[in-house]
């Protein structure tokens, strides 16, 4: 079971601003979905290895060559607030924060 308090916490972790209405809706819906997941407990998985990817391809490497992106200007210009070669963002910390 997940309650509204937890839903609020999860929304914060996910960096989602949710309304009181959404909070209530998600609490109901997440509970029925989590409840649906319960059927997995019917399966004994004690000695089962997890599958992390469908087709095993591990330790894929390639030479670490530096390749400058040819279209750097467009890349930076796609940002909401580009500034030269930088991305501008609002204040990270409030100045009066203790």
């Amino acid at each position: 079971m997940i309650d509204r308090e937890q839903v609020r916490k999860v929304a914060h972790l996910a960096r989602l601003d949710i309304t009181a209405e959404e909070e209530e809706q998600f609490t109901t819906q997440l509970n029925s979905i989590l409840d649906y997941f319960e059927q997995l407990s019917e399966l004994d998985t004690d000695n089962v290895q997890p599958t992390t990817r469908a087709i095993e391809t591990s330790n894929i490497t390639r030479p670490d060559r530096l390749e400058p992106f040819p279209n750097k200007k467009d890349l930076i210009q796609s940002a909401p607030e580009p500034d030269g070669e930088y991305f501008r963002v609002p204040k990270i910390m409030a100045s009066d924060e203790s």
Partner: protein
Amino acid sequence: MSSVKSQTIKGLHQQLVSKKRSAVEITQETLERITTLEPKVKAFLTVTAENALAKAQQVDQKIAAGEEIGILEGIPIGIKDNMCTQGIKTTCGSQILANFVPPYESTVTQKLQAAGAVAVGKTNLDEFAMGSSTENSSYQLTANPWELTRVPGGSSGGSAAAVAASECVVSLGSDTGGSIRQPASFCGVVGLKPTYGLVSRFGLVAFASSLDQIGPFARNVEDAAIFLSAIAGYDERDSTSLKVEIPDYTQYLQPELKKGLKVGVIKETFGDGLDSVVAERVQSAIAKLEELGAEVKEISCPRFRYGVPAYYIIAPSEASANLARYDAVKYGIREDAENLVEMYTKTRATGFGDEVKRRIMIGTYTLSAGYYDAYYLKAQKVRTLIKQDFEQAFADVDVLVSPTCPSTAFKAGEKTDDPLAMYISDLMTIPVNLAGLPGMSIPCGFDEAGLPIGLQLIGNVLREDILFHVAHAYEQATEWHKQSPSL
């Protein structure tokens, strides 16, 4: 009847080579058809008429110069709007990417450009490919061309509808839990999800990285085979890309079914919740395969039904991590805010729709401290069990069959209030993604209302050859694929 309707790749290629029609003419006719039909079907989010005509002109110049042209040159195609196209808006059906114009090209679309295909537009989808009806698009509702009040399926609903309505010849979709096969079934076209890693995911906007795979929609099996041959192949920019030789898949299309071919019918897919008319048509299709010489036997995949709950843990978990990148810093929309965290939370609240938020919430919860073992790890173990069921099955048979979906296309709005009901419509397709196997949906009949029904063929790892072989033999022996919606 418009001349672009029911055209095949080979048919159009022949017309181009014999100079009966030019690539520009074919493109213009396609664009006209799009203009006429889009008010009803709404399959496209962006139509790239100018680019398409310029591309077609290049093809015509080659023909005029007496150069040989490739099989896809001048062929009108559609691209799901979650594949990056340089200089062309790529929205993923989401408001958060409303203004996103990719500065680079995805590998698949790059390959198709190089092959001379004419991209006519970007097709509608459920936001970030999360959904089964394309109703989660934040831009428009796509209609099922067979019955406009019905959904086309999803998430690649636009790509399926566009092909069914002959607004393009073939199209690209992506399939994480059934997003190619289910809409193919609902729209009466061929849809293939290849083996995980066969087609590069570079430039495909990530949803659930361990499951996502790109594949073709087509009106017949041969077109799908030609299209897959063009897009498959190793790509060093996708670390899960498989290093395998890509055959010309059309070589597996033969008039007769291989002798001794063993077909396994997955018993568990004929249980509760399956529409009786779907069961009936799929059974007739199986009888047809037997008539064509296949040896048919029943196969049990006892853990098959746990696919849906396992998937709805794994996919949202991966999605919650993948979608963390939408932080309003480097691209996409931004909501003004006093500080950084507020900028994130406000932008994501405005930019994401309900279903995307719901999945981010589920995924964040199932990956959070204290719950990882109970959910994500458990689901990955169940994934192993489902894989084992398939491995066992393929020790016995060459190909597995099932219905693609438990029902035909449902009405728009019918399942939007009940996320679980929507999830369960992917019951038959999800286990295939969990195991990384190739799966195809081909038309196998219609219900009483004239809505298409799909037969799902499942192959072992990298056995697309068998899927094409069986699908083609079935198609040649039936007339379903010759029918098209009256629009």
